[in-house]
C-alpha cells in the first residue's frame, strides 16, 4: 500500500484553489485558497461561522464545492464521498464523534472498510497496537465505546483515521471537550505524527493553542480567506485582529465584589435523571450577591443538572436549596418548586440555559413574542398583550446591538451570537437577584463573548448573585470571583479565582478532591 504513494516532490500535500460553497443564499466559503504542506501542523483559525469546518468538510468528502479546484499531491481530484477522501489518504476527526456505542474499539475501526467477508479482528488489533506504539496512544481494542471517556473516544477516532492510512489529518476543534492535561497529551501525539511526516490541520478558535501547537496559521473570516502566517512570527493580538477584522481588547474587567451577601445556599443536593443515573451527588455551596461564582468541570459533570435543579426544572432526590431575599435576608426554600412557584414567590431568578433554542427561546417565534415567554400571563384578559414585549424587544435590540432585520423575525433565523443576545437581554431585563448561566458564550464570536462577559459583570455590580458555568478555563479565571469545580457530579473543590491556576482547576476537574489526596496519576506522553 505504501508503495503506491508517489511523492510528487515540490507539490504541497493539498491545494485548495478558489473554493466556493454556498448554502442557499449563505456563502460559507468564497473563493478560498488554502495550502496544506507535508509534515506541518496548520491551524485553521476563525470565529464561529467563518467557514472553517465547511472548508474542511469539502476536503473530507462531506460536502462538494460549488466551484474551485482541489489538488492532492499536485493533481486535481474530485472528492465526492468520505471514501474518496480516504482513498486520497485524507481523514477527518469530527467535533461530534462518529462511533457506534455498542461496538468495541476494534470493531469501530474496521467499520465500513468491507475488506473481507469474515472479520479479521486479530489482525486489526495488531495493527492498532502498532499504530499506538508508534505515536504514543493508548487504545484498548476490546473496550466498548460506551465505556469510554470523551478523550478515549477522540483517541479512537484518530486511530481509526490512521488505520485507514491517512497522511493528512484534520481535527475539528479537538480540544473543546478535553481537560488541560488531556490537551497536552493530544498535542504530544500530534507532534509525534508530524515527526512521522503527516500533515495535520487543527481547526480551532483558541489562540493559546494555536500558538502552542502549530507551525503555521491560516485565518478565515466570514467565509473569506484572510491570509496565513508562520506561528513564530505572530502573537495572539495580531491573530485576533485578523480573525475579527479590527482591533479587539482581550482583557476582562473584574471589579472586586462589593459587600457580598449570601443569596443562595445549596446543601447536600443529589439529583437523579430520568434514566436513573445519579447526576449530582451531595453538592453543597453558597452563591453570594455581588459576586460571580464560576462553575468548571468536564462537560457532563452535572453542570446542567445543577442549574436546572436550582431553577425548578429537576426533581431533587435529597438536599436543600435556600434563597435569601436581598433586603430582608429572609430564607426561602426553593425545594420542590417549579418555575411558576418560584416566580410567584417573588424570586427574581434569571436563567440562561445551555440549550438556547430548545429551552430558553422559541425558535419559530419572533423576538417580540420571545420577550413575553415568561410574562405572557400578565393582565386579566384571555388575550395576550403585545405592546410591552415589542418595546422590550426594541430595547434589547438597541442596547445589545442585535443584528436582525426586524423584531418580527423568527429568532431561529438569527445567528448564534444574536440569539444569545436576545436570550441574555430578556433574562437580564427583569433586574434579577440571581442569575444562572450555562455555557453563555459557547459558539459565539469574540466580540459577542466580551459583550456577555460585560453583562455578567454588570449584573454582579448591581448586586445579583451570578452563577456562571463555563468551558474556557482562561476566561473563568479572569471573569469569576470564585470557582466551583465539579467532578462527575460532586464538588471537587471551591477555589479563589484570583489566586488559583489553570493546572489546579484542571486537576480538580479530573480528580475528585485532588488537592487533599494524591496528585495526578496521568502519565505524560513524551515525544
Amino acid at each position, binding site marked *: 500500500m505504501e508503495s503506491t504513494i508517489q511523492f510528487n516532490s515540490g507539490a504541497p500535500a493539498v491545494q485548495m484553489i478558489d473554493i466556493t460553497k454556498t448554502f442557499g443564499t449563505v456563502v460559507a466559503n468564497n473563493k478560498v485558497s488554502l495550502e496544506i504542506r507535508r509534515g506541518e501542523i496548520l491551524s485553521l483559525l476563525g470565529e464561529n461561522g467563518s467557514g472553517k469546518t465547511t472548508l474542511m468538510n469539502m476536503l473530507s468528502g462531506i460536502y*462538494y464545492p460549488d466551484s474551485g479546484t482541489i489538488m492532492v499531491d499536485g493533481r486535481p481530484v474530485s472528492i465526492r464521498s468520505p471514501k474518496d477522501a480516504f482513498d486520497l*489518504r485524507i481523514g477527518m476527526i469530527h467535533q461530534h464523534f462518529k462511533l457506534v456505542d455498542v461496538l468495541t474499539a476494534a470493531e469501530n475501526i474496521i467499520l465500513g472498510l468491507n475488506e473481507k467477508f469474515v472479520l479479521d479482528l486479530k489482525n486489526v488489533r495488531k495493527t492498532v497496537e502498532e499504530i499506538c506504539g508508534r505515536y504514543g496512544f493508548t487504545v484498548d481494542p476490546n473496550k466498548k465505546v460506551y465505556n469510554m471517556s470523551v478523550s478515549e473516544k477522540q483517541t479512537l477516532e484518530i486511530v481509526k483515521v490512521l488505520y485507514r492510512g491517512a497522511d493528512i489529518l484534520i481535527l475539528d476543534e479537538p480540544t473543546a471537550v478535553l481537560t488541560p492535561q488531556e490537551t497536552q497529551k493530544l498535542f504530544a501525539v500530534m507532534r509525534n505524527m508530524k515527526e512521522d511526516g503527516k500533515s495535520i490541520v487543527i481547526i480551532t478558535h483558541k489562540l493559546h493553542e494555536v500558538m502552542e501547537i502549530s507551525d503555521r496559521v491560516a485565518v478565515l473570516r466570514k467565509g473569506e480567506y484572510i491570509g496565513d502566517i508562520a506561528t513564530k512570527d505572530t502573537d495572539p493580538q495580531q491573530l485576533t485582529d485578523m480573525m475579527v477584522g479590527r482591533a479587539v481588547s482581550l482583557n476582562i474587567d473584574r471589579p472586586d465584589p462589593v459587600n457580598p451577601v449570601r443569596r443562595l445556599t445549596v446543601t447536600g443536593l443529589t439529583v437523579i435523571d430520568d434514566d436513573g443515573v445519579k447526576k449530582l451527588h451531595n453538592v453543597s455551596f453558597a452563591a453570594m450577591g455581588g459576586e460571580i461564582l464560576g462553575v468548571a468541570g468536564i462537560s457532563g459533570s452535572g453542570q446542567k443538572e445543577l442549574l436546572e435543579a436550582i431553577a425548578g426544572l429537576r426533581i431533587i432526590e435529597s438536599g436543600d436549596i435556600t434563597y435569601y431575599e436581598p433586603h430582608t435576608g429572609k430564607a426561602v426554600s426553593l425545594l420542590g418548586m417549579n418555575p411558576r412557584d418560584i416566580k410567584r414567590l417573588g424570586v427574581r431568578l434569571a436563567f440562561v440555559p445551555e440549550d438556547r433554542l430548545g429551552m430558553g427561546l422559541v425558535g419559530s417565534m419572533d423576538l417580540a413574542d420571545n420577550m413575553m415567554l415568561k410574562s405572557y400571563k400578565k393582565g386579566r384578559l384571555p388575550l395576550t398583550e403585545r405592546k410591552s414585549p415589542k418595546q422590550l424587544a426594541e430595547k434589547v435590540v438597541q442596547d445589545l446591538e442585535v443584528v436582525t432585520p426586524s423584531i418580527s423575525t423568527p429568532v431561529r433565523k438569527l445567528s448564534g451570537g444574536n440569539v444569545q443576545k436576545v436570550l441574555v437581554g430578556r433574562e437580564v431585563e427583569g433586574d434579577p437577584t440571581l442569575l444562572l448561566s450555562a455555557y453563555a458564550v459557547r459558539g459565539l464570536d469574540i466580540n459577542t463573548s466580551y459583550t456577555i462577559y460585560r453583562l455578567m459583570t454588570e449584573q454582579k455590580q448591581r448586586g445579583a448573585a451570578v452563577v456562571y458555568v463555563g468551558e474556557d478555563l482562561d476566561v473563568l479565571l479572569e471573569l469569576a470571583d470564585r470557582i466551583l469545580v465539579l467532578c462527575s457530579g460532586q464538588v471537587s473543590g471551591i477555589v479563589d479565582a484570583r489566586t488559583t491556576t489553570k493546572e489546579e482547576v484542571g486537576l480538580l476537574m479530573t480528580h475528585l478532591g485532588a488537592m487533599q489526596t494524591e496528585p495526578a496519576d496521568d502519565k505524560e506522553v513524551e515525544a
Partner: protein
Amino acid sequence: MSNIRKSLVREPIIHISRRTDIPRWHGWLIRCGGVLAGLLLSGLIIFLFFKVNPISAYGSMINGVFGEKWAGKTFYDGFAYSFAWIRDTMILLLIAVGLAPAFKMRFWNIGAEGQILVGAIAAAACMIFLGARVPSGLLLVIMAVAAVAAGAVWGLLPALAKSFWKTNETLFTLMMNYIALLLMEFFVAKWEDPPGSNSISIINRVDKTGWIPPVIEGETFGTSFLVITVLVLIFTTLMYVYLKHSKQGYEIAVVGESENTARYSGISVKKVVVRSMTLSSAICGLAGFFIVAGRDHTISDTTAGGRGFTAIIVAWLAKFNPFVMILIAAFLTFMDYGAKNIATRFNVPNDFSQIITGILLFCILGCEFFINYSVKLDFGRKGGKE
C-alpha cells in the same frame, strides 16, 4: 487503498440542497405547478385507460360541482347547485380547524375520524330517542352538545395517557378510530331500521326534527348549507384569534415548539396538552353533529368517510392558518366532487375518482419537497479540471 489514483475528476449529477428562504409567491407558484402536473398526469391516465378525452372529462368536473345544467342558466341557479359542495367544504374545514390546535402543539391527532364517528353516534342517538319529545330547535342544541361531549371524551383519553404515561398519541388516536368504527357498527345493528336491513334509514324522515333547516330560497333539507357555513366560518375566525392572540394559543405554540421551553417558562405542559387536545376532538365531534343533522340524517360506517384524514392534509397544507384552510378545503372538495362526476358521466369504475384524487394529492404534497429543497441537474460542468 491501492486505487489511490482512481479518484478522477468525476462530478455528481444531481445537487439537492435545502432552500433557506423562498418568497411566498414562489411557493404558491410551485404548488400551482403541482396541481397542473397532477391534472396532466391524470388526464393521461384517463385517456390511456378509458379512452376519454381529458378536456371533456375535466369539463364534467365543473359540472359535477355546479350541476349538469349549469351552462346557460343564471349565475344564481348555477350557484344553487353548488350548495352541496359548499356544505361539504365547510364540514371538512371544521374538522381541519379542529385539528389545528392539536397539530400546532405537535400532538399528532390522527383520530379525527373516530371523533367524528362518536360525535355522529351521540347526535343520532338524541335524534332517535328525543325526536318525538322535544321541539326541533332544542333537539339540535342537545344533539350538538352531546356530539361535542362524545368527541371530547374520545380526545381526552389519548391526551391523558400521553400526559401521564407518555404514550404515543399517534398510535393511540389511530386505535381509537377502530374502536369508534366498531361502536358505530354496534349501534347501527342495534338501532337498525327497518329491521333486518343492518342499516339505519333516514331518521325522523317525516317531521324532520333534528334536521338543520333550510334558510334561503333554493336550499332544501339536503343542502341546507347556510347555517353550517355561518357557524363554521365563525368557528374558523374564533380559532384564528385563539391560536394567534390568546394566552392559551401562545402556550400551545410554546409547547409545540419545545416542551423544555414550556417548562422553563412555567407552563404546565400536561394541562396544555389535555386542554388543547380536548378542544380539538370536541370540534371534530361537532363536525359529526353537522354531518348527521345537516347532511346524512342517518349514521353508517361511512359517516366520517375519510374526512378525518383528508382534514389532516388541509390543516398541514394551510400551515395551520384557519383562513388558508378555507381555500384548501374548497379545492379538495371540488376535486372530490369533480372526480366522482367523471366516473358517473363517462361510465368508468367508481374507484377511478379515487385514483384521480390520489394522483392530485400526490402531486400537491410532492410539491412541498421542491419548496423546501432545490434540485439542480448538472451534466456538463467542468469544475475540478485544470
